[in-house]
C-alpha cells in the first residue's frame, strides 16, 4: 500500500482535558492518538481512512502518571508500558501488569505505547487486557457530559466492540489491590520470542478461596472462564479443571494458530497455573 497522504488528517492538539473533551464532543470522527503505535501502523499501511486526529500528548501532566488512590492503583491514559514496568508499586503488587508490559512488543513500543491505547480497540489479542481482567480493573470514561466508570470485563461487547461512546475519552484505569497472599500467573504464547501477536495469552490470580482467570486470543474478546474458576475454587483437581475449561472455551482457526492448538495449549497452561499457584506449592 502507498503511504497515506498526511494532508487528509487534520490534527487537533488540546492543551487541557477540558479542551480535549470539547473537541471530542464537537468534531465528528475525531481519532485520539496516545502513543500512536496502533494508529501510525494503520496510517503507514494506508488502512486508516482519512479523518481528523487528536494528539493527546500535551495532556501528560494530567494523564501521564501512575499513582495510588484509596488503596487502588490508578494508571493515567498516557502512562506507557515502560512506566508500568518501572513503577515500584506495580512491581511490588501487580506482577501480571509488569509481565504483560514486558512481553508487549519491544522496548521501542513499550516506550511509546500506552496501556489505555491497548484496551481501546477491543482486540482479543491485546496482551494487557487479561491482566486487567484478572485484577478486576475499572475503566474511567470522561466526556463533557460527565464521568462514568465501567468494569473492564463489561467494557467489551463483542469482537472489537466496546461501550466507549463517540464523545468519550478514557482518562484512567483503576485497579483494586489484589488479596494478600494471592498468587499470580501470566503467560504469553506468541509466534516468536518477541514482537509477536499472541496465539494464546492467560492471566490468573489465585487467592485463598477465589480464582480469576482471563484468556486472550481464544475468543472474540478477552474472556474469563467462570465455570473453570468455580471448579478450581471448590477443589477440583487438574484433570477436572482442564475438562471444564474445554466446555467453556471454543477458540477459532486464524492466521496465527489453530483451534486445536489453542485449546490444547490453554489446557496445558491451566495445569501450569494450578501447579504454580497451588496453595501448598
Amino acid at each position: 500500500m502507498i503511504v497515506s497522504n498526511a494532508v487528509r488528517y487534520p490534527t487537533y492538539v488540546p492543551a487541557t482535558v477540558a479542551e480535549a473533551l470539547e473537541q471530542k464532543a464537537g468534531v465528528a470522527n475525531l481519532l485520539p492518538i496516545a502513543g500512536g503505535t496502533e494508529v501510525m501502523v494503520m496510517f503507514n499501511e494506508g488502512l486508516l481512512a482519512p479523518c481528523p486526529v487528536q494528539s493527546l500528548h500535551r495532556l501528560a501532566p494530567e494523564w501521564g502518571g501512575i499513582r495510588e488512590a484509596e488503596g487502588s492503583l490508578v494508571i493515567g491514559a498516557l502512562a506507557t508500558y515502560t512506566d508500568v514496568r518501572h513503577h515500584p508499586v506495580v512491581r511490588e503488587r501487580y506482577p501480571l501488569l509488569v509481565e504483560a508490559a514486558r512481553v508487549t512488543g519491544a522496548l521501542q513500543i513499550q516506550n511509546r505505547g500506552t496501556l489505555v491505547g491497548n484496551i481501546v480497540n477491543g482486540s482479543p489479542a491485546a496482551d494487557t487486557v487479561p491482566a486487567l481482567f484478572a485484577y478486576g480493573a475499572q475503566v474511567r470514561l470522561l466526556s463533557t457530559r460527565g464521568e462514568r466508570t465501567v468494569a473492564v470485563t463489561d467494557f467489551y461487547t463483542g469482537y472489537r466492540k466496546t461501550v466507549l461512546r463517540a464523545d468519550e475519552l478514557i482518562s484512567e484505569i483503576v485497579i483494586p489491590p489484589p488479596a494478600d497472599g494471592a498468587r499470580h500467573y501470566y503467560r504469553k504464547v506468541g509466534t516468536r520470542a518477541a514482537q509477536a501477536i499472541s496465539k494464546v495469552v492467560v492471566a490468573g490470580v489465585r487467592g485463598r478461596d477465589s480464582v480469576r482467570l482471563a484468556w486472550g486470543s481464544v475468543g472474540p474478546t478477552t474472556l474469563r472462564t467462570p465455570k473453570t474458576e468455580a471448579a478450581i475454587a471448590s477443589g477440583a483437581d487438574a484433570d477436572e479443571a482442564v475438562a471444564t475449561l474445554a466446555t467453556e472455551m471454543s477458540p477459532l482457526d486464524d492466521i496465527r494458530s489453530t483451534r486445536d492448538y489453542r485449546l490444547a495449549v490453554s489446557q496445558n497452561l491451566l495445569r501450569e497455573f494450578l501447579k504454580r499457584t497451588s496453595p501448598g506449592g
Partner: protein
Amino acid sequence: MKVDNDVALENRLSRVDALLKVAGAAKYASDQYPAKMIYGKLLRFPYGAGTVKSADADAARAVPGVLEVEIDLAETAKYPGWVIGHIVAENRAAIGDAEEAAALAFDATSAASVADRQYDGAGALDAEAKQRVDDVLGRSAAVVEGTWRTQVQTHSCLETHGTVVDFHGDSADVWGNSQSTFSMLDMAEPLGIDRSAVRVDNEFVGGGFGSKFGIGAEGRLAAQMSKKYKRPCKVMLDRREEHLDAGNRPGSIQYIALGAGEDGRILGGRIDGVSIVGFGRGGGGVTNLGDKRFDNYDLGAYEFTQSEINLNFSKPRAFRAPGWPQAVFALEGAVDELAEKLGIDPVEMRRINYRSARRHKQLGIGAELIGWNRRAPTGSQTGRVRTGFGVAGAMWPVWNTECGAEADIHRTGQVEVRVGVQDIGTGTFTLVTDVAAHELGLDRSLVRGKVGRSSYPQGPGSGGSQVSRAAAPATTHAVRAALADLTKIVAKEWKMKPEDVGYSGGVFTGGAKTLEWRKACALMSGDKITASGRTETGQEGDGTSDCVQFAEVEVDTETGIVRVKRIVAVHAAGVIVNRITIENQICGGVVQGLSYALFENVRLDPNTGAMVNPEFINYKLAGPVDIPEIVPVLDVEEGDTGVRPIGEPATIPTAAAIGNAIANAIGARVRELPMTPERVLAALDTKGAGT
C-alpha cells in the same frame, strides 16, 4: 599465473563501509532524489487469478499531481501481484490518492493455492525400477519411508527492489540495487540506446539472496517513464509487492524411502521430489538431490524422480543455495530416522555415509564444540522443557569466473582499486580493499576499494557464491601490475634494472638503497599509474565448500515452542581474507536457515488465492530474541586454494540440524517446515507423549 594462496591475509578489521552504513551516508537506490524526479508504481491484481472488473482511470488521472494512469482491463491475472497497470505521479501521496480514486474492482476466478490438492503421492516407477527399489529395501536391515514438506519462502530483502532512471536522450544514469551491476545494462533495451551509453551506479545493495538479477518490471517502468517524461523516475516496490512478485524459494513435497544395512551403510531406495513452483519454473526446485555431482551422501542404488506442481503464485527465483535447504532438510531427516532405527549415533551414521573426508573431520570438530556427549537418547526425557541435539551437513561446488579489476597508484601514495562486481551486503568493498592493502603491504587507510559501477571492469553477478573468489585474485593481479609499473619508475631513478629492485611492506630496495612508498610514488611524472588485471575461467583451482552444522534446542512440550540455544557451524573456508565478513556470512546464513526452519511461510487463501501475509506482521522472520549463540568455525587446510564460496552453503544445513535436534528432544519428528509450535505439539500428540 596462479595466485591462489597469495591472497591469504587474514585480518579482523571491521568493514570499510561500516561507518557509511550506520551513519546513513551510504546512498542506496531508494536514497536517490535527482532534481525533478517523478514516481512510478505498478498496480497489481490481489487474488490468485482473474481480471479487473472495473476501474475509474479517469478519476485517478484527475488527482492533482498524477501524470499517467494505465489499467489493462483485458489482462488475465495468473497470480496475486500480477501487474495490471501503473500510475506515474509527481509525488508518492498523489499515487496513493490516485490508487484510491481508481476504485479497482476485481473478478477472481478459481486458482490453485493448495499444493496438496494436486499431490497424489510419489510418481509411478517403471516395473524394473520398482523392482530395484523393492530389492534394495528388501535386503535392508532398516527402512525409513515418509513424506517431507517444505514451505514457500520469500527473499525478504531489507531493501525492496527498485530503480531510479535518469534518461538524457542518448545516455542514461541508472541507480539500481542489483546483484549484478552489469545485468542493469539491460536498461538499454527499454531506453532504446546502446549498452555503452548506460551508466549504472549499484554501489549499495540492501540484500538480494538471489532475487535481484536483471532490471525487473520496476526497472522497466522507471526506464519507460523517464524516457517518456524526460525526467528522472523512481520505482521502488513496497513490502507487499516484494513478497508477491520479487522471488521466492519454491516449496516441496519429498517422498523418501531409504534402506540401510546393519552396519549403517545406506543401501539405496528412492527419492521423489516435487517442487511447488508457482506460475513459472525456476528457483532450483529440489533437483539437486538427483545430481550425483552434488551428493551429500553415498546413497547406494537409488531411483530419483522429480516433478513440479504449479500454483497461482509468482515465479520462483534463485534463493541462496537454490533447491538445497529443502532437499537437505528431508534427506538429513531421513538419515537420522534410519540411524535411530539402527541404534547408531547420528554423527557416526554420517561418518559411515558422507563421501567427503573433509566432512568427517568437521563432524569431530562440531561434535566437540556443541557438547554432543550431553545428547540424551532420543525420546528419553520427561520434563516440560526438553533439550535436543542435531547435526546435518552439506556442500557447495566451487565456480570459477572471469573477473576484471583496475588499480591506480597515485602520486600521493593513495591506492584505488575498482571492480565492477557488487557488494550485496557480503563485504566486497572490504575484500577488495584488504586484498590490495595486503598485496602492497600498506596500511588499509591508504587504500580505497570501489565496487558496483558499470564503468569499472566487469565481473560476475552475485550468484553461486563466486564474487569473492573471483574478485580477490583479479584485485591481486591489478595491484601487482600497477606495482610493477611503479617499480620501473624507481628503477629508472636508481638507474637499475627493474628486476634488481625489490619491494616489501611499503619499501623499495635496490643494493644499499631504500625508498619509502610515498617517496617512490612522488617520483611519478603524472598524477597516477593505472593498471588492470583479471582472472580467467577455471584458472584458480577447485574444491568444494563442505560444511556441517550442529544445533542445540530446547522444546517446551507445553506450548510446542522451540528455542534454538546454539548453532555450531563448521565450514571449509579456503583462503580467509577478512574474518569478520566471512563469519558474518556464516552467521547470516544460519539466521536465515533458522528463520526458514521455524517461522517463515507464504500463506495463500485457499478460496481467493490471495497471499494472506504479504507483510512482516504475519510473515514472521526470526527476530533478535530468537537468534541463538552462533559459533562459526572456519575450517582451513593446508593446500586449500582460493577464496571459497561461503554465502550459500552457510544456510543449507541449518533447518535440517534444527529438525534433527527437535526429534532428539521430544522423540517425535516434524517432517514439515516451518516447524511451528502447532506442528511440534501435534507430533508429540501422535507419539502419545504429551505433558
